[in-house]
C-alpha cells in the first residue's frame, strides 16, 4: 500500500529517540490497513494546523446494545476517505489484563479483518480499545468477538467496565481477591453495562490495598480499596536483616509514618491501634511486614474528573467489609445507591455530585446507612445545622 504513502515530515520526528513511538505503530499498521495510511495523513495535517480533525459521534453501535462503540468521523473525509468513519470499539478486558498469546492473536486477526489494526492496550477505563472502523463492520466484529468469548465494554450513561489491580494473582498485599470481585461484578451487571439507563456514567474500581494501583480513590464512583482490620504481621528477624543491610529504619520507616505509631531501638514496636494502614512501612520492608490476617475492603463513593461540577475524590461510605462478604454487600449497596440516583440525579450528574448537592447526611438516610466517625476527617465546623422535626412516635 505504498503508492499512497502520505508525507509525514512532522510525525517522522516522533520516530526518533529512545521511547517507543506511536508513529511507528501507525506506520506498521499501514502494512495491513489503508485506514492507518489515512490516519497518518490526517494526523500530519493536525500537527501542521495544531488542531484536531474529528467530528462528534452520532449514534452507532451493535444490535441490542446502547454502548460499547464510540462513533467518530473525519471532518476532512474528501482528503482521507478511508477514515471517513473511524469508530472506536471498547472490549471488556479480562480481570487483571492477563492474556495468552493465542487470545491476543485471535483479537489481532479479528481486527485485521475488520478495522484499522490499531489498538489501545488499554483505554483509560481499562477496556481493550479497537481504534477505527466503519459502521458496517461493527456487527461482523461483534459476532467474531463474542464467538471468541469477548464482549463489549461500557460507554455513555451506563455502568462502565469495572477494573482491578493484579491482586492475589501476583501481590502479597492484596486484602481480597480483586480479580474475582471485578469479574463477578462485571458479570452481574451486564445489562447495566450494555444498555445505558443512568443519569450519567458509573465506574467501579477494585484496588487490593491502600497503594491503590488502579486509582480507585480518584477515578471510581464506587471505590473498593482493600484494607485489614487487625495488626500488621511482623517478622522481627527480617526487620533486623533490613537494618543490618543498611536501611535507616528510624528515618525511612518510623519518621515517615503518618501517625508516628512505630518506634525503633534495635527492635520495631508498632502501636497498631494508632496505625492508619497507609502501607508505607510495608512498602519499604516487604519481607518483614505484611497486612494483617483479618482482611477485607473499605467502600468509598463519588470520585470523578472535573466535568461537570469539579473533580472529587471518593469518600468513605463503609469503613470495613470482610472479604467474604464483599460481593453481596456491594450488590446491596449499589442497588440502594442506584435507586436514589435514578430518582434524584440530574442529567449528567455523577453520584459524587449528587451527594454534594443534596448533602451526605441526606444521602445516607436515603440509602439506609448509619453515620460513623470514620466517614469524616472531622465533624462539621459550622453551626448551620438542618435540625429535623421530631417524628411523631418520638
Amino acid at each position, binding site marked *: 500500500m505504498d503508492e499512497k504513502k502520505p508525507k509525514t515530515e*512532522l510525525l517522522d520526528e*516522533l520516530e526518533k*529517540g*529512545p*521511547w*517507543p513511538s*506511536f508513529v*511507528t*505503530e*501507525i506506520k*506498521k499498521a499501514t502494512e495491513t490497513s489503508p485506514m492507518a495510511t489515512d490516519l497518518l495523513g490526517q*494526523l500530519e495535517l*493536525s*500537527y501542521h494546523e*495544531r*488542531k484536531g480533525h*474529528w*467530528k462528534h*459521534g452520532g449514534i452507532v453501535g451493535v444490535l*441490542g446494545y446502547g454502548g460499547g462503540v464510540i462513533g467518530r468521523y473525519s471532518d476532512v473525509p474528501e482528503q482521507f476517505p478511508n477514515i471517513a468513519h473511524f469508530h472506536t470499539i471498547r472490549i471488556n478486558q*479480562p*480481570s*487483571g*489484563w*492477563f*492474556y*495468552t*498469546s493465542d487470545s*491476543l492473536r485471535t483479537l*489481532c486477526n479479528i481486527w485485521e479483518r475488520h478495522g484499522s*489494526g*490499531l489498538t*489501545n*492496550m488499554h483505554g*483509560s477505563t481499562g477496556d481493550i480499545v479497537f481504534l477505527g472502523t466503519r459502521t458496517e463492520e461493527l456487527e461482523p466484529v461483534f*459476532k467474531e468477538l463474542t*464467538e471468541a468469548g*469477548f464482549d463489549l465494554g461500557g460507554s455513555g450513561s451506563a455502568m462502565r467496565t469495572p477494573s482491578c489491580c493484579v491482586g*492475589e494473582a*501476583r501481590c*502479597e498485599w492484596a486484602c481480597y481477591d480483586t480479580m474475582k470481585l471485578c469479574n463477578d461484578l462485571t458479570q452481574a451487571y451486564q445489562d447495566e453495562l*450494555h444498555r445505558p439507563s443512568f443519569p450519567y456514567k458509573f465506574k467501579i474500581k477494585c484496588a487490593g490495598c491502600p*497503594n*491503590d494501583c*488502579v*486509582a480507585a*480513590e*480518584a477515578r471510581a464512583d464506587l471505590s473498593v*480499596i482493600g484494607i485489614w482490620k487487625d495488626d500488621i504481621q511482623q517478622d522481627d528477624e527480617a526487620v533486623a536483616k533490613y537494618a543490618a543491610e543498611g536501611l535507616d529504619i528510624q528515618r525511612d520507616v518510623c519518621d515517615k509514618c503518618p501517625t508516628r505509631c512505630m518506634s525503633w531501638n534495635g527492635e520495631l514496636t508498632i502501636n497498631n491501634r494508632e496505625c492508619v*494502614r*497507609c502501607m*508505607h512501612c510495608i512498602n*519499604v520492608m*516487604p519481607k518483614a511486614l505484611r497486612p494483617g490476617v483479618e482482611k477485607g475492603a473499605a467502600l468509598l463513593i463519588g470520585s470523578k*474528573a*472535573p*466535568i461537570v*461540577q469539579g*473533580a472529587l475524590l471518593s469518600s468513605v461510605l463503609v469503613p470495613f467489609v470482610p472479604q467474604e462478604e464483599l460481593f453481596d454487600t456491594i450488590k446491596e449497596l449499589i442497588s440502594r445507591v442506584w435507586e436514589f440516583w435514578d430518582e434524584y440525579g440530574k*442529567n449528567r450528574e455523577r453520584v459524587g455530585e449528587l451527594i454534594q448537592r443534596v448533602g451526605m447526611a441526606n444521602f445516607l438516610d436515603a440509602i439506609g446507612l448509619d453515620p460513623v466517625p470514620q466517614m469524616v476527617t472531622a465533624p462539621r465546623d459550622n453551626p448551620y445545622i438542618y435540625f429535623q422535626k421530631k417524628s411523631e412516635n418520638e
Partner: protein
Amino acid sequence: MATTITPKRITDIGPPHYEKFLPPVIRRNYGAWKYHEVLEPGVLCHVSETGEKLYSVRAASPRLLSIQTIRLFADLADKYCGGYLRFTSRNNVEFLLEKLDEVAPLKADLAAAGFPIGGTRATISNIVHTQGWVHCHSSATDASGIVKSVMDSLSEYFVEEKLPAKLRIAVACCLNMCGAVHCSDIAILGVHRRPPKIRHDMLAKVCEVPTLISSCPTGAIRSAVVEGRQSVEVIEEQCMFCGNCYTVCPAMPMNDPENDGISIWVGGKVSNARSEPKFTKLAIPFLPNNPPRWPEVVEAVKNIVENYAKNARRFERMGEWIERIGWPRFFELTGIEFTRYHIDDFKNAGLTFARSTHLRF
C-alpha cells in the same frame, strides 16, 4: 409454514474468565504470595509461601499498539513465558517467567525491538494518557506526541531508579480528563482559552437547547434568537473554557490553534502511603502547542523532575516534598512565575487560601 433457523446471537457474555489466562505458576500460588523483590528496574521477583518464584519483566509501551506489535509481544510470550503475559494499569506490558535465566535473553529481545525495560518502584512509569488528535473530537492538543517527547527526554528515569520515590505523570488533552490526571505527581493538561464559536446555522438542528444550557457549570449559556433562528449565546466573562457544552452539542466547537495549549499541574497522588491522596495543583497555567516536539512542555516537565530529584528526601512523593518545603520555595526553585491564575476562584476556592501566619520566605 417455512421456518428459518438463525443461529442464536451471542450477547451479554461479559469478558472471558481470567483464570484461563493465568500462567501455571500463578494458578498454583494464587493468594499465596509472601513477598517480592525488585531485582533491577523493571524486573520483579515474587516469592510464594511454598518458595516458588515468579519473575515479571516490565517494558514500556506507547499504549497505541498495532496488531503487528501485539503479535510480536505474543511471540515473545511464547518464546519465554509459555504464552502468558499481561498489561499493567499504566499500560506497560509485563512478561511472566518461571526461570531466572530466561530474563536476560528476553530483555535483549525487547531492547532489540525498541522497548525499554523499567518502570518499577522509584522510577517514572509509563505516562497514562488520552487520545488527542489521534482520535478525539474535543482535544486541545495531541496526547501521544507529548508523551513521546517528554519520555524521550526522561527515559533515563524509566530505566534507572534514581528518584526519591515513584513519579507518576499523566496527560489529558482536555478538561474531560479521560486520563484522570487530577491526582498525578505531574499532570500535563490540554486547555482551551476561548469560548465556543457558536454555529447558529446548525445549532437548532443538532442540539437540544435545554440540555445545552444546563451543561454549563457556570450558567454562562442562555437561550437566544440569532438572525431569526433559535440558538444560544455565551456570557463570555463567565466561560472558563471547559468544553462541556461541546460535549453535548457539536455546534459549540472549541478548537482554536492560536489559543489552545498546555497547562502543567503538580503534586497529586492516589496512593494512601504516608500522606492522604491529593489533587494536583497548578504550576504553569499555559504553554503553547508546539508540535511535533512541544519543547516548552518538555523543558517545563524536565525542570520540575530535576528539581524534585535533587531536593526531595527518600520516599517523598512530589506533593509531599512541596508540602514540606512550601509552595513559595517550589516556585523559587523551579523559577516558575506565580500568577493570578494560581489562586482558585471556582467553588470552595477558600480551601486553598493561606489561612494562617505559617509563612515561609
